[in-house]
């Protein structure tokens, strides 16, 4: 049983009128790990998560979460999963304590356990001194911790987090991820959606979504490793002009300016000769540059995956 994936999805599709929000996604999420959904806004992350929780009815495809068929058995599933919504969905006009109490009652936490459990959560998520504060008056980070505390109230086996740290400063974000890893240590499976690369790097495993399609998946290392030798750094006194000269150049998949340098992503099969060809092209344009190979990042993975998907579509 524990070897079976927490989430098993085949051909998941969701259509809103003309818009194809999720397009035949296959997914296997292993247990006890942090699984990331990386993608820009509108790539279908939230829609997929909502279908997995049984909040949206899929247009097509099969979903099995913790061995239960969704949406048919969604009601049974609700007791075993936690879901942290993208925007704060707790009651702003209730206090921290009242919110936790309400959630505990609804989730049916046994009466004799309730007080202890709420105290435990207040302590763990550093909310003990805010117990009587109205939830609406708290900072983004505090709200996030309260939402997490509510989502894990019943110690769910599987926790969905939809862009949990988008409204949070970097320091709170680090604390928040500490809390998430604590949960995986206890055996909880986490599915986190994000559009932040640094957040995606923390995941055990990643799926990259683009316009409703799953364009790549694997561990962050495997994904970046596959691009080894294809990423280059061009240092130049006038990076803007250099970028101009390289637009449309054969073999260049992506260009991004990083300070005084340009980051280049080479097309598949360009080999080691790519550096020389680029340097030559820039010299011809009258630019003096220095070129060196650099290690690939998740951003490169993302660009590579989405660009090749685009080409497939165009072909």
């Amino acid at each position: 049983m524990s070897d079976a994936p927490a989430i098993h999805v085949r051909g998941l599709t969701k259509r809103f009128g003309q818009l194809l929000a999720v397009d035949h996604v296959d997914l296997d999420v292993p247990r006890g790990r942090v699984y990331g959904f990386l993608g820009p806004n509108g790539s279908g992350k939230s829609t997929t998560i909502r279908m997995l929780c049984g909040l949206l009815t899929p247009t097509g495809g099969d979903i099995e979460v913790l061995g239960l068929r969704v949406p048919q058995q969604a009601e049974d599933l609700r007791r075993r999963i936690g879901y942290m919504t993208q925007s704060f969905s707790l009651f702003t006009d209730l206090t921290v304590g009242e919110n936790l109490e309400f959630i505990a009652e609804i989730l049916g936490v046994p009466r004799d356990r309730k007080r202890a459990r709420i105290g435990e959560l207040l302590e763990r998520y550093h909310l003990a001194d805010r117990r009587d504060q109205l939830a609406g008056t708290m900072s983004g980070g505090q709200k996030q911790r309260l939402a997490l505390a509510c989502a894990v109230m019943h110690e769910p086996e599987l926790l969905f987090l939809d862009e949990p740290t988008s409204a949070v400063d970097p320091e709170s974000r680090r604390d928040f991820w500490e809390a998430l890893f604590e949960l995986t240590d206890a055996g909880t499976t986490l599915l986190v959606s994000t559009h932040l690369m640094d957040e995606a790097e923390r995941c055990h495993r990643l799926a990259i979504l683009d316009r409703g399609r799953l364009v790549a998946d694997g561990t962050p290392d495997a994904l970046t490793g596959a691009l080894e030798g294809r990423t280059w750094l061009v240092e130049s006194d006038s990076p803007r002009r250099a970028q101009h000269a390289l637009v449309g150049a054969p073999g260049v998949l992506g260009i991004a300016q990083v300070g005084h340098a340009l980051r280049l992503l080479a097309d598949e099969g360009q080999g080691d000769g790519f550096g020389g060809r680029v340097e030559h092209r820039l010299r011809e344009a009258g630019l003096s540059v220095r070129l060196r190979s650099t290690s690939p990042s998740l951003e490169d993975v993302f660009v590579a995956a989405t660009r090749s998907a685009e080409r497939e579509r165009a072909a």
Partner: protein
Amino acid sequence: MNLRRLWAIMQKEVRQMRRDRITLAMILVMPIVQLVLFGYAINLNLRGLDAAIADQAQTSGSRALVMDMLATDVIRPVATAHTPEEVVDLIRRGRINVGVVIPPDFEARRQDGRPVAQVLVDGSDATVAGAAAQLAQTPVDSRLPDARAPYTSTPPVPRIVVTSFYNPERRSAINIVPGLIGVILTMTMVLFTAIAIVRERERGNMELLIAMPLTSSELMLGKVVPYVLIGLVQTTVILALGRWLFDVPIRGSLLDVYLAALLLIASNLTLGLLISSGARSQFQAMQMTFFVFLPSILLSGFMFPFSGMPTVARWIAELLPLTHFLRLIRGIMLRNAGLFDLWGDALALVVFTAVMMTAAILRFRKRLD
């Protein structure tokens, strides 16, 4: 249905309501303001209408009739006229609302039983017409005691005399206050629940609630029950103020009054829920509420007599909870009727509630799409 979860929802609603000071104040202030407004300002029996009287008979009998009419305070003579033509002209020019013409053959007409006087009304104002009808009731026959004497062979003069048994002074407050319980409950109860579910959706709480192991009926009932208490508080405020300010009697049993109020509260809350399950924003919910509220005020018999309405309007009125409640509450409070004497209207409210609640629960999907 899990009682613990139901209780949790109710507790949450009450806590949120307690923090919303303005709404809380409205719950108490609105009945008071409306009661005072309707009780004092909107006097359906107009008094002091501008009038002219052309008494062409000038007998002691005709003068006595004029004095009786003036004694009702409905009219106030502001102009003098001697002929019917002059009276008509005054009305046309808007100088007066009502004209009274007593023809020269007044005494002969009275003996023959023919109409003795004519009341000319500015019909462009419906309320004035109503007031004039009241004026026409001034008893003429009382001056001729033998005309009604049971032993005379001549039958009594057929005249349309409307007699009000239960409100002899024709004070509108007595009619209005019981009805006002219904109007205020209709306005507040429908609105509160109409907004209740939409608000959760607008604030983003709905996604959380749907993701919870909660059934639709737990959510719906838990949201409705706290408002029942508020409705009963409002009922009490109106009853107490009505008694204190306007001497409105409660002739029937107080328990029946509250039972009738409960039936109306239940009907309105469930109607509100149904609106809430269909509306997309609080603004829409409010608009839909007024869509129900307006016909309730106009057709239920609260403002205009039910009997004067065209058939279609009556059908619509029968679908409105307020119509049935008005019949119940006026019966109980003014005619000392029991709730069971009026079982038809009580049953109508029960059926309405059941239908609305079922429809609301069925309509509400535990899905975001």
